[in-house]
Protein backbone atom coordinates (compact mmCIF):
# COMPACT_ATOMS: atom_id res chain seq x y z
CA UNK A 1 0.00 0.00 0.00
CA UNK A 2 2.80 2.43 0.97
CA UNK A 3 4.32 2.19 -2.48
CA UNK A 4 1.12 3.33 -4.18
CA UNK A 5 0.67 6.17 -1.66
CA UNK A 6 4.24 7.30 -2.29
CA UNK A 7 3.71 7.22 -6.06
CA UNK A 8 0.46 9.17 -5.54
CA UNK A 9 2.23 11.80 -3.46
CA UNK A 10 4.90 12.03 -6.17
CA UNK A 11 2.15 13.03 -8.58
CA UNK A 12 1.92 9.79 -10.56
CA UNK A 13 -1.41 9.69 -12.36
CA UNK A 14 -1.60 5.92 -12.60
CA UNK A 15 -1.35 5.73 -8.80
CA UNK A 16 -4.21 8.27 -8.56
CA UNK A 17 -6.34 6.17 -10.95
CA UNK A 18 -5.67 2.96 -9.04
CA UNK A 19 -6.42 4.48 -5.64
CA UNK A 20 -9.68 5.96 -6.96
CA UNK A 21 -10.76 2.44 -8.05
CA UNK A 22 -10.10 0.99 -4.62
CA UNK A 23 -11.88 3.85 -2.91
CA UNK A 24 -14.80 3.71 -5.34
CA UNK A 25 -15.25 0.01 -4.70
CA UNK A 26 -15.32 0.68 -0.95
CA UNK A 27 -12.84 -2.07 -0.18
CA UNK A 28 -11.07 -2.23 3.22
CA UNK A 29 -7.91 -1.38 1.28
CA UNK A 30 -9.66 1.67 -0.17
CA UNK A 31 -10.50 2.88 3.32
CA UNK A 32 -6.81 2.59 4.25
CA UNK A 33 -5.85 4.76 1.29
CA UNK A 34 -8.45 7.31 2.22
CA UNK A 35 -7.14 7.36 5.80
CA UNK A 36 -3.59 7.94 4.54
CA UNK A 37 -4.49 10.64 2.03
CA UNK A 38 -7.34 12.51 3.72
CA UNK A 39 -4.92 14.77 5.67
CA UNK A 40 -3.60 15.99 2.31
CA UNK A 41 -7.06 17.12 1.18
CA UNK A 42 -9.02 20.29 1.93
CA UNK A 43 -7.30 22.72 -0.40
CA UNK A 44 -9.21 22.41 -3.66
CA UNK A 45 -12.26 24.36 -4.78
CA UNK A 46 -15.02 21.87 -5.60
CA UNK A 47 -17.48 22.86 -8.31
CA UNK A 48 -20.73 20.98 -8.96
CA UNK A 49 -22.30 21.06 -12.40
CA UNK A 50 -25.88 19.87 -12.57
CA UNK A 51 -28.86 20.18 -14.90
CA UNK A 52 -31.10 18.11 -17.13
CA UNK A 53 -30.01 15.29 -19.43
CA UNK A 54 -28.63 16.80 -22.61
CA UNK A 55 -28.37 20.32 -21.15
CA UNK A 56 -24.66 20.42 -21.97
CA UNK A 57 -23.11 19.60 -18.59
CA UNK A 58 -20.23 17.55 -20.00
CA UNK A 59 -19.43 20.05 -22.73
CA UNK A 60 -19.60 22.89 -20.18
CA UNK A 61 -17.36 20.93 -17.79
CA UNK A 62 -14.82 20.44 -20.56
CA UNK A 63 -14.98 24.08 -21.67
CA UNK A 64 -14.64 25.34 -18.09
CA UNK A 65 -11.65 23.06 -17.50
CA UNK A 66 -10.07 24.44 -20.70
CA UNK A 67 -10.59 27.98 -19.33
CA UNK A 68 -8.85 27.01 -16.08
CA UNK A 69 -5.96 25.55 -18.08
CA UNK A 70 -5.62 28.90 -19.88
CA UNK A 71 -5.37 30.42 -16.40
CA UNK A 72 -2.63 27.97 -15.48
CA UNK A 73 -4.76 25.93 -13.08
CA UNK A 74 -5.11 22.15 -12.84
CA UNK A 75 -8.47 20.36 -12.84
CA UNK A 76 -9.76 16.98 -11.69
CA UNK A 77 -13.13 15.94 -13.07
CA UNK A 78 -15.49 13.31 -11.65
CA UNK A 79 -18.29 12.74 -14.14
CA UNK A 80 -21.23 10.57 -13.07
CA UNK A 81 -23.54 8.71 -15.44
CA UNK A 82 -26.41 6.44 -14.35
CA UNK A 83 -26.20 2.72 -13.65
CA UNK A 84 -28.89 0.37 -14.92
CA UNK A 85 -31.37 -0.41 -12.14
CA UNK A 86 -31.69 -3.92 -13.61
CA UNK A 87 -28.24 -5.12 -14.66
CA UNK A 88 -26.21 -2.52 -12.69
CA UNK A 89 -24.12 -1.99 -15.80
CA UNK A 90 -23.51 1.50 -17.16
CA UNK A 91 -22.42 3.41 -20.23
CA UNK A 92 -20.12 6.23 -19.17
CA UNK A 93 -19.98 8.66 -22.06
CA UNK A 94 -19.01 12.02 -20.57
CA UNK A 95 -15.43 11.85 -21.87
CA UNK A 96 -16.72 12.14 -25.44
CA UNK A 97 -17.45 15.83 -24.77
CA UNK A 98 -14.04 16.51 -23.26
CA UNK A 99 -11.77 15.34 -26.09
CA UNK A 100 -9.76 18.55 -26.27
CA UNK A 101 -8.42 17.84 -22.80
CA UNK A 102 -7.63 14.19 -23.47
CA UNK A 103 -3.86 14.62 -23.47
CA UNK A 104 -3.55 17.61 -21.13
CA UNK A 105 -1.32 16.66 -18.19
CA UNK A 106 -3.11 19.24 -16.03
CA UNK A 107 -6.50 17.55 -16.36
CA UNK A 108 -7.66 14.19 -15.04
CA UNK A 109 -11.09 12.86 -15.99
CA UNK A 110 -12.70 10.01 -14.13
CA UNK A 111 -16.07 8.58 -15.17
CA UNK A 112 -18.17 7.14 -12.35
CA UNK A 113 -21.33 5.07 -12.44
CA UNK A 114 -24.18 6.14 -10.16
CA UNK A 115 -24.42 2.63 -8.67
CA UNK A 116 -27.88 3.31 -7.33
CA UNK A 117 -27.03 6.43 -5.31
CA UNK A 118 -29.63 9.17 -5.07
CA UNK A 119 -29.16 12.79 -6.04
CA UNK A 120 -27.40 12.21 -9.36
CA UNK A 121 -24.17 11.32 -7.58
CA UNK A 122 -22.29 8.08 -6.89
CA UNK A 123 -22.03 6.29 -3.51
CA UNK A 124 -18.31 7.07 -3.16
CA UNK A 125 -18.36 10.56 -4.68
CA UNK A 126 -17.21 12.32 -1.48
CA UNK A 127 -14.31 9.92 -1.09
CA UNK A 128 -13.24 10.19 -4.74
CA UNK A 129 -13.37 13.98 -4.54
CA UNK A 130 -11.21 13.87 -1.39
CA UNK A 131 -8.65 11.72 -3.22
CA UNK A 132 -8.56 14.14 -6.19
CA UNK A 133 -8.30 17.01 -3.71
CA UNK A 134 -5.34 15.31 -1.99
CA UNK A 135 -3.64 14.85 -5.38
CA UNK A 136 -3.43 18.63 -5.54
CA UNK A 137 -5.80 19.78 -8.27
CA UNK A 138 -6.69 23.46 -7.98
CA UNK A 139 -10.29 22.65 -8.95
CA UNK A 140 -12.33 19.46 -8.76
CA UNK A 141 -15.42 19.54 -10.94
CA UNK A 142 -18.23 17.10 -10.18
CA UNK A 143 -20.66 16.55 -13.02
CA UNK A 144 -23.91 14.93 -11.91
CA UNK A 145 -26.18 12.52 -13.69
CA UNK A 146 -28.82 14.40 -15.70
CA UNK A 147 -30.93 15.90 -12.93
CA UNK A 148 -34.61 16.68 -12.75
CA UNK A 149 -36.26 18.91 -10.20
CA UNK A 150 -35.14 17.44 -6.92
CA UNK A 151 -31.50 16.29 -7.07
CA UNK A 152 -30.10 18.74 -4.54
CA UNK A 153 -27.37 16.60 -2.91
CA UNK A 154 -24.65 18.12 -5.11
CA UNK A 155 -24.88 21.39 -3.16
CA UNK A 156 -23.69 19.54 -0.04
CA UNK A 157 -20.67 18.11 -1.81
CA UNK A 158 -19.58 21.07 -3.95
CA UNK A 159 -18.59 24.52 -2.66
CA UNK A 160 -20.00 26.17 -5.77
CA UNK A 161 -23.01 24.66 -7.53
CA UNK A 162 -23.82 25.58 -11.12
CA UNK A 163 -27.26 24.78 -12.52
CA UNK A 164 -27.33 24.45 -16.30
CA UNK A 165 -30.56 25.54 -17.98
CA UNK A 166 -31.52 25.55 -21.66
CA UNK A 167 -33.85 27.72 -23.70
CA UNK A 168 -37.15 26.11 -24.67
CA UNK A 169 -37.48 23.71 -21.75
CA UNK A 170 -40.51 25.06 -19.93
CA UNK A 171 -42.18 28.29 -18.94
CA UNK A 172 -41.49 30.52 -15.96
CA UNK A 173 -43.61 28.35 -13.66
CA UNK A 174 -40.84 25.73 -13.86
CA UNK A 175 -38.42 28.34 -12.58
CA UNK A 176 -40.81 29.25 -9.76
CA UNK A 177 -40.91 25.76 -8.31
CA UNK A 178 -38.96 24.66 -5.26
CA UNK A 179 -36.10 22.20 -5.46
CA UNK A 180 -33.01 22.16 -7.61
CA UNK A 181 -33.18 25.82 -8.64
CA UNK A 182 -32.82 26.86 -4.99
CA UNK A 183 -29.38 25.29 -4.63
CA UNK A 184 -27.78 27.08 -7.56
CA UNK A 185 -24.95 29.45 -6.67
CA UNK A 186 -24.65 30.34 -10.33
CA UNK A 187 -27.34 29.91 -13.00
CA UNK A 188 -26.12 29.18 -16.51
CA UNK A 189 -28.24 29.44 -19.63
CA UNK A 190 -26.33 27.12 -21.94
CA UNK A 191 -26.94 26.74 -25.70
CA UNK A 192 -27.37 30.51 -25.69
CA UNK A 193 -27.10 30.46 -29.47
CA UNK A 194 -30.52 28.79 -29.58
CA UNK A 195 -33.70 30.84 -29.85
CA UNK A 196 -35.30 31.80 -26.55
CA UNK A 197 -32.09 32.23 -24.54
CA UNK A 198 -32.80 35.88 -23.73
CA UNK A 199 -36.41 35.06 -22.79
CA UNK A 200 -35.16 32.41 -20.36
CA UNK A 201 -32.67 34.87 -18.85
CA UNK A 202 -35.43 37.42 -18.22
CA UNK A 203 -37.71 34.72 -16.78
CA UNK A 204 -34.97 33.67 -14.38
CA UNK A 205 -34.28 37.30 -13.47
CA UNK A 206 -37.96 37.89 -12.81
CA UNK A 207 -38.09 34.82 -10.61
CA UNK A 208 -35.05 35.90 -8.62
CA UNK A 209 -36.59 39.33 -8.07
CA UNK A 210 -39.40 37.61 -6.14
CA UNK A 211 -36.97 36.32 -3.53
CA UNK A 212 -37.18 37.88 -0.06
CA UNK A 213 -35.21 41.10 0.45
CA UNK A 214 -31.61 40.52 1.43
CA UNK A 215 -31.45 36.97 0.12
CA UNK A 216 -28.68 36.04 -2.27
CA UNK A 217 -29.35 36.40 -5.97
CA UNK A 218 -27.26 34.00 -8.04
CA UNK A 219 -25.75 35.51 -11.16
CA UNK A 220 -27.24 34.39 -14.48
CA UNK A 221 -24.74 33.75 -17.25
CA UNK A 222 -25.21 32.90 -20.90
CA UNK A 223 -22.87 30.28 -22.37
CA UNK A 224 -22.39 28.39 -25.61
CA UNK A 225 -20.16 25.64 -24.29
CA UNK A 226 -19.60 23.96 -27.67
CA UNK A 227 -17.74 27.10 -28.76
CA UNK A 228 -16.25 27.90 -25.36
CA UNK A 229 -18.26 31.13 -25.18
CA UNK A 230 -18.95 32.60 -21.76
CA UNK A 231 -16.30 30.53 -19.97
CA UNK A 232 -14.22 33.54 -18.96
CA UNK A 233 -17.24 35.11 -17.24
CA UNK A 234 -18.19 31.78 -15.67
CA UNK A 235 -14.71 31.27 -14.18
CA UNK A 236 -14.85 34.86 -12.87
CA UNK A 237 -18.28 34.24 -11.29
CA UNK A 238 -16.96 31.09 -9.59
CA UNK A 239 -14.01 33.08 -8.23
CA UNK A 240 -16.40 35.79 -6.98
CA UNK A 241 -18.53 33.15 -5.27
CA UNK A 242 -15.44 31.83 -3.54
CA UNK A 243 -14.62 35.29 -2.20
CA UNK A 244 -18.23 35.64 -1.05
CA UNK A 245 -18.03 32.29 0.78
CA UNK A 246 -14.85 33.34 2.52
CA UNK A 247 -15.95 36.82 3.56
CA UNK A 248 -19.37 35.73 4.87
CA UNK A 249 -18.07 32.76 6.84
CA UNK A 250 -20.08 30.40 4.62
CA UNK A 251 -16.95 28.48 3.68
CA UNK A 252 -16.38 27.12 7.18
CA UNK A 253 -20.08 26.46 7.58
CA UNK A 254 -20.22 24.52 4.32
CA UNK A 255 -17.17 22.44 5.28
CA UNK A 256 -18.65 21.67 8.71
CA UNK A 257 -21.98 20.63 7.24
CA UNK A 258 -20.30 18.51 4.59
CA UNK A 259 -18.21 16.77 7.25
CA UNK A 260 -21.30 16.11 9.38
CA UNK A 261 -23.16 14.74 6.37
CA UNK A 262 -20.29 12.45 5.40
CA UNK A 263 -19.84 11.06 8.92
CA UNK A 264 -23.55 10.42 9.38
CA UNK A 265 -24.02 8.80 5.99
CA UNK A 266 -21.07 6.46 6.56
CA UNK A 267 -22.38 5.63 10.05
CA UNK A 268 -25.76 4.85 8.51
CA UNK A 269 -24.11 2.48 6.01
CA UNK A 270 -22.17 0.75 8.81
CA UNK A 271 -25.33 0.28 10.86
CA UNK A 272 -27.21 -1.09 7.87
CA UNK A 273 -24.41 -3.57 7.26
CA UNK A 274 -24.59 -4.63 10.93
CA UNK A 275 -28.32 -5.16 10.60
CA UNK A 276 -27.79 -7.30 7.52
CA UNK A 277 -25.18 -9.37 9.34
CA UNK A 278 -27.26 -9.84 12.48
CA UNK A 279 -30.20 -11.35 10.60
CA UNK A 280 -29.74 -14.39 8.34
CA UNK A 281 -31.21 -13.98 4.87
CA UNK A 282 -34.02 -16.52 5.44
CA UNK A 283 -35.15 -14.66 8.58
CA UNK A 284 -35.11 -11.35 6.70
CA UNK A 285 -37.10 -12.94 3.88
CA UNK A 286 -39.65 -14.35 6.34
CA UNK A 287 -40.06 -10.91 7.90
CA UNK A 288 -40.42 -9.24 4.53
CA UNK A 289 -42.97 -11.86 3.44
CA UNK A 290 -45.11 -11.05 6.47
CA UNK A 291 -45.07 -7.37 5.53
CA UNK A 292 -45.94 -8.19 1.91
CA UNK A 293 -48.84 -10.33 3.17
CA UNK A 294 -49.99 -7.40 5.34
CA UNK A 295 -49.55 -9.45 8.54
CA UNK A 296 -47.00 -6.99 9.87
CA UNK A 297 -46.42 -3.28 9.21
CA UNK A 298 -43.05 -2.17 7.77
CA UNK A 299 -42.16 -0.07 10.81
CA UNK A 300 -42.54 -2.96 13.27
CA UNK A 301 -40.56 -5.21 10.95
CA UNK A 302 -37.71 -2.69 10.78
CA UNK A 303 -37.71 -2.37 14.58
CA UNK A 304 -37.40 -6.14 14.85
CA UNK A 305 -34.37 -6.02 12.56
CA UNK A 306 -32.74 -3.23 14.54
CA UNK A 307 -33.40 -5.08 17.80
CA UNK A 308 -31.60 -8.12 16.41
CA UNK A 309 -28.37 -6.08 16.25
CA UNK A 310 -28.53 -5.22 19.94
CA UNK A 311 -29.11 -8.86 20.82
CA UNK A 312 -26.39 -10.15 18.52
CA UNK A 313 -23.62 -7.82 19.69
CA UNK A 314 -22.95 -9.33 23.14
CA UNK A 315 -23.25 -12.77 21.56
CA UNK A 316 -20.57 -11.89 19.04
CA UNK A 317 -18.22 -10.79 21.80
CA UNK A 318 -18.80 -14.00 23.74
CA UNK A 319 -18.04 -16.05 20.66
CA UNK A 320 -14.71 -14.33 20.23
CA UNK A 321 -13.77 -15.08 23.87
Amino acid at each position, binding site marked *: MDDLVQRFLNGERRALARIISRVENETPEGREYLRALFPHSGKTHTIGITGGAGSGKSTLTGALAAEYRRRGKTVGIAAVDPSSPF*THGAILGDRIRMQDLALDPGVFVRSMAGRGALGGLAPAIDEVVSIMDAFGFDYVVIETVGAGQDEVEIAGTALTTILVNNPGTGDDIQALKAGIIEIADILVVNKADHPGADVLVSQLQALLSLAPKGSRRPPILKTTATRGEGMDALADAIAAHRVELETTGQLEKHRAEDARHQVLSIARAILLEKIRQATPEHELQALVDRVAARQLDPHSAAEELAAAVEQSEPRAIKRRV
Partner: protein
Amino acid sequence: MTAPTATKIRVLIAKPGLDGHDRGAKVVARALRDGGCEVIYTGIRQTPEMIAEAALQEDVDVVGLSILSGAHLELFPRVVAELKKRGVDDVLLFCGGIIPDEDTKPLEDLGFSAIFRPGTNTQDIVKFVYEHVTK
Protein backbone atom coordinates in the same frame (compact mmCIF):
# COMPACT_ATOMS: atom_id res chain seq x y z
CA MET B 1 -26.20 -9.78 -12.44
CA THR B 2 -24.25 -8.47 -9.48
CA ALA B 3 -25.06 -6.25 -6.51
CA PRO B 4 -25.22 -2.55 -7.35
CA THR B 5 -22.22 -1.64 -5.22
CA ALA B 6 -20.06 -4.69 -5.88
CA THR B 7 -16.77 -4.22 -7.68
CA LYS B 8 -17.55 -3.82 -11.35
CA ILE B 9 -15.60 -4.78 -14.42
CA ARG B 10 -14.62 -1.55 -16.18
CA VAL B 11 -14.25 -1.69 -19.95
CA LEU B 12 -13.00 0.98 -22.35
CA ILE B 13 -14.52 0.74 -25.83
CA ALA B 14 -12.62 2.91 -28.29
CA LYS B 15 -12.37 3.49 -32.01
CA PRO B 16 -8.89 4.39 -33.22
CA GLY B 17 -8.34 5.95 -36.61
CA LEU B 18 -10.51 7.81 -39.01
CA ASP B 19 -13.42 5.54 -39.90
CA GLY B 20 -16.70 6.73 -38.44
CA HIS B 21 -18.53 3.41 -38.44
CA ASP B 22 -19.34 3.21 -34.75
CA ARG B 23 -22.39 0.96 -34.77
CA GLY B 24 -20.35 -2.13 -33.89
CA ALA B 25 -18.65 -0.35 -31.01
CA LYS B 26 -22.00 0.86 -29.68
CA VAL B 27 -23.60 -2.60 -29.96
CA VAL B 28 -20.71 -4.13 -28.02
CA ALA B 29 -20.81 -1.32 -25.41
CA ARG B 30 -24.53 -1.89 -24.95
CA ALA B 31 -24.12 -5.68 -24.65
CA LEU B 32 -21.45 -5.25 -21.97
CA ARG B 33 -23.64 -2.74 -20.15
CA ASP B 34 -26.47 -5.27 -20.16
CA GLY B 35 -23.95 -7.82 -18.93
CA GLY B 36 -23.35 -5.66 -15.84
CA CYS B 37 -20.08 -3.96 -16.85
CA GLU B 38 -19.28 -0.27 -16.50
CA VAL B 39 -18.39 0.73 -20.04
CA ILE B 40 -16.49 3.90 -20.84
CA TYR B 41 -17.26 4.84 -24.42
CA THR B 42 -14.99 7.47 -25.90
CA GLY B 43 -16.43 7.85 -29.38
CA ILE B 44 -14.83 7.89 -32.80
CA ARG B 45 -11.53 9.18 -34.18
CA GLN B 46 -9.36 8.46 -31.18
CA THR B 47 -5.59 8.61 -31.43
CA PRO B 48 -3.55 5.84 -29.78
CA GLU B 49 -2.38 8.38 -27.18
CA MET B 50 -5.97 9.36 -26.30
CA ILE B 51 -7.02 5.72 -25.90
CA ALA B 52 -4.07 4.89 -23.67
CA GLU B 53 -4.56 8.01 -21.56
CA ALA B 54 -8.27 7.22 -21.10
CA ALA B 55 -7.41 3.63 -20.10
CA LEU B 56 -4.99 5.00 -17.50
CA GLN B 57 -7.31 7.63 -16.02
CA GLU B 58 -10.32 5.32 -15.95
CA ASP B 59 -8.24 2.41 -14.56
CA VAL B 60 -10.09 -0.07 -16.77
CA ASP B 61 -9.71 -3.84 -16.66
CA VAL B 62 -10.41 -4.30 -20.36
CA VAL B 63 -9.74 -2.33 -23.55
CA GLY B 64 -11.78 -3.20 -26.62
CA LEU B 65 -10.83 -1.61 -29.95
CA SER B 66 -13.16 -1.42 -32.93
CA ILE B 67 -11.86 -0.69 -36.39
CA LEU B 68 -13.27 -0.98 -39.90
CA SER B 69 -10.77 1.06 -41.87
CA GLY B 70 -8.18 -1.66 -42.36
CA ALA B 71 -5.50 0.28 -40.48
CA HIS B 72 -5.43 -2.09 -37.50
CA LEU B 73 -1.87 -3.29 -38.08
CA GLU B 74 -0.71 0.33 -38.15
CA LEU B 75 -2.77 1.64 -35.22
CA PHE B 76 -3.06 -1.26 -32.76
CA PRO B 77 0.70 -1.61 -32.18
CA ARG B 78 0.78 2.10 -31.40
CA VAL B 79 -2.09 1.75 -28.89
CA VAL B 80 -0.24 -1.12 -27.19
CA ALA B 81 2.99 0.91 -27.15
CA GLU B 82 1.23 3.93 -25.62
CA LEU B 83 -0.36 1.72 -22.96
CA LYS B 84 3.03 0.22 -22.07
CA LYS B 85 4.60 3.69 -22.00
CA ARG B 86 2.11 4.63 -19.28
CA GLY B 87 2.66 1.44 -17.29
CA VAL B 88 -0.80 0.12 -18.19
CA ASP B 89 0.43 -3.43 -18.75
CA ASP B 90 -2.25 -5.55 -17.12
CA VAL B 91 -5.38 -4.85 -19.14
CA LEU B 92 -7.22 -7.48 -21.15
CA LEU B 93 -7.15 -6.51 -24.83
CA PHE B 94 -9.67 -7.50 -27.47
CA CYS B 95 -10.63 -6.09 -30.82
CA GLY B 96 -13.28 -6.33 -33.47
CA GLY B 97 -14.23 -5.16 -36.92
CA ILE B 98 -13.07 -5.97 -40.43
CA ILE B 99 -9.90 -7.90 -39.71
CA PRO B 100 -8.62 -10.46 -42.24
CA ASP B 101 -7.79 -13.96 -40.99
CA GLU B 102 -4.12 -13.61 -41.86
CA ASP B 103 -3.83 -10.74 -39.38
CA THR B 104 -4.91 -12.92 -36.46
CA LYS B 105 -1.41 -14.08 -35.60
CA PRO B 106 0.25 -10.63 -35.54
CA LEU B 107 -2.56 -9.29 -33.33
CA GLU B 108 -2.29 -12.25 -30.96
CA ASP B 109 1.45 -11.67 -30.76
CA LEU B 110 0.70 -8.07 -29.90
CA GLY B 111 -1.33 -9.20 -26.86
CA PHE B 112 -4.91 -9.27 -28.14
CA SER B 113 -6.74 -12.13 -26.42
CA ALA B 114 -9.65 -12.22 -28.86
CA ILE B 115 -10.77 -10.89 -32.21
CA PHE B 116 -14.51 -10.57 -32.77
CA ARG B 117 -15.48 -10.33 -36.41
CA PRO B 118 -18.83 -9.42 -37.98
CA GLY B 119 -21.52 -11.95 -37.06
CA THR B 120 -20.20 -12.52 -33.53
CA ASN B 121 -22.89 -13.17 -30.92
CA THR B 122 -22.57 -10.30 -28.43
CA GLN B 123 -23.12 -12.76 -25.59
CA ASP B 124 -19.85 -14.44 -26.56
CA ILE B 125 -18.08 -11.11 -25.98
CA VAL B 126 -19.70 -10.68 -22.57
CA LYS B 127 -18.77 -14.27 -21.69
CA PHE B 128 -15.20 -13.68 -22.86
CA VAL B 129 -14.84 -10.62 -20.62
CA TYR B 130 -16.24 -12.35 -17.54
CA GLU B 131 -14.07 -15.44 -18.12
CA HIS B 132 -10.88 -13.46 -18.46
CA VAL B 133 -11.22 -10.78 -15.80
CA THR B 134 -10.86 -11.92 -12.22
CA LYS B 135 -12.23 -9.51 -9.65
